């Protein structure tokens, strides 16, 4: 036991020893130490969040063939701090017609719903907030608070743009929660546990190889859950100006914005944890937490980058198309995949790894192929129907001008 292999335990033991030495009861000292640990984690997260603002602006600039912030400090790294000072000294306005209590509570809940997700994120084998045995359910529950904050913001602003944005966003969020839950069930089946640490420990082979389709469904549902483009119905700026957060300014808007960025990183992290082995990378995680944490963060940032890539490449989809995509395509697909995974897992579990892994992979590939083929036939039939109708109309117009 030394600093290199278990720094957190060493620091906690030292602090508890110090506090009990001052005559504090052992239980209180333990609680205080745990509280300080949580405070440290969340403070570090907020600092990361500040740099996410810089990262997001830099990446969107590159996607749009610009340079992005480059004036303040090297590569514009000090730019987000200038942004924070701007947000802090900006006047804090509340519309006269707004429901004041709910209006002020919404941005706080928005940020909180993201921060509490990190309670179950295992940063390293022995560095984690809480190893809840209902981790997968906790993700869904914390997401519900985020949904609540959006409807609170939209409703309390007493603004028509905000209300429409909030209703749309909530319709999308609750719809895409179904494929999300189904995708969360797949690692649960494979690992036999809902706890995040148990899921990572069980991934001797990354679950993306056992369930590539599940990983894809989780990514799509996560992007929808984040409310980012192409699913950014709530803040469709070309039609709703800013959506549910239209009446917010200063730090309250900042909380929504920072919350969204951290949420994206968090879901990139969960994608990495559930399907890409979390902090595991060829046994390096056993050497030291100082290696395991960067591995997890690298995976989270790669996931975040993919989410950004989708955001800045895809255009927004209309709300009816989006809900139809979810309820008529993604939800049935997710449930069929769930059944196939459960069946294949039980049938192949006894077999050796050389049969189990390709078998699981193939079951996903075959299901994906069937779905693609079915959709191709369906869309061709639809197209021919539409073309036939167009042709008939032209003939009719020629005959009777």
């Amino acid at each position, binding site marked *: 036991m030394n600093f290199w292999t278990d720094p957190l335990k060493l620091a906690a033991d030292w602090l508890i020893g110090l506090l009990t030495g001052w005559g504090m009861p052992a239980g209180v000292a333990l609680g205080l130490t745990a509280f300080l640990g949580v405070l440290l984690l969340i403070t570090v997260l907020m600092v990361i969040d500040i740099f996410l603002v810089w990262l997001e602006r830099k990446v969107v600039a590159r996607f749009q063939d610009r340079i992005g912030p480059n004036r303040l400090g090297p590569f514009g790294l000090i730019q987000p701090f200038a942004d924070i000072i701007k947000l802090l*000294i900006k006047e804090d*306005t*509340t*519309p006269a017609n707004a429901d004041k209590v709910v209006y002020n509570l919404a941005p706080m809940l928005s940020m909180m719903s993201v921060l509490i997700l990190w309670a179950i994120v295992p940063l390293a084998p022995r560095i984690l907030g809480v190893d809840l045995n209902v981790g997968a359910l906790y993700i869904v529950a914390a997401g519900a608070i985020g949904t609540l904050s959006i409807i609170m913001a939209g409703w309390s602003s007493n603004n028509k743009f905000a209300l429409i944005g909030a209703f749309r966003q909530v319709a999308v969020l609750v719809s895409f929660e179904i494929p999300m839950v189904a995708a969360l069930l797949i690692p649960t089946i494979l690992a036999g546990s809902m706890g995040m640490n148990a899921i990572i420990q069980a991934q001797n082979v990354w679950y993306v190889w056992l369930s590539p389709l599940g990983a894809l469904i989780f990514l799509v549902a996560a992007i929808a859950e984040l409310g980012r483009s192409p699913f950014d119905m709530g803040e469709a700026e070309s039609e709703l100006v800013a959506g549910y957060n239209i009446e917010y300014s200063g730090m309250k808007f900042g909380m929504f914005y920072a919350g969204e960025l951290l949420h994206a990183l968090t879901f990139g992290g969960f994608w990495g944890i559930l399907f890409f082995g979390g902090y595991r990378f060829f046994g390096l995680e056993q050497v030291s937490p100082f290696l395991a944490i960067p591995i997890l963060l690298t995976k989270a940032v790669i996931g975040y980058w993919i989410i950004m890539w989708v955001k800045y490449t895809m255009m927004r989809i209309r709300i009816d198309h989006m809900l139809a995509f979810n309820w008529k395509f993604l939800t049935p697909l997710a449930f069929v995949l769930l059944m196939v995974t459960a069946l294949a897992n039980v049938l192949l579990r006894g077999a050796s790894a050389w049969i189990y892994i390709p078998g699981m992979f193939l079951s996903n590939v075959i299901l994906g192929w069937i779905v693609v083929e079915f959709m191709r036939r369906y869309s061709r039939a639809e197209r021919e129907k539409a073309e036939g109708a167009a042709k008939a109309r032209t003939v009719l117009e020629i005959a009777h001008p």
Partner: protein
Amino acid sequence: MNSQWLLVAFFFIVGLIIPVGAIVAAAILGPKKPNPIKQTTYECGIETVGDSWVQFKVQYYIFALVFLVFDVETVFLFPWAVKLGQLGLFAVMEGIVFISILVVGLVYTWRKGMLEWA
């Protein structure tokens, strides 16, 4: 077990303190010069007409209703998924029957035209 949930409570407390602190700091540092025009509801170029707290399109409510049915039932699937390894093929078949009932519900909603954006 209880200490675990105490830690989760710490996360809730700290997760609330940080945004509250930031917003309160901004409220203290920022200027406070409210006036009636500044506090009007935002609208594109014109003054806003009427209240926003009105009766709203029912379609959103129907999607929420469908979601509620599914979400409650998917919660039952979590214990099934956790114990699937020990329970074997019979439990898988039971689960498939259960999911099929869910899918029948979806087909019913679909056939009723509730998934169309009318």
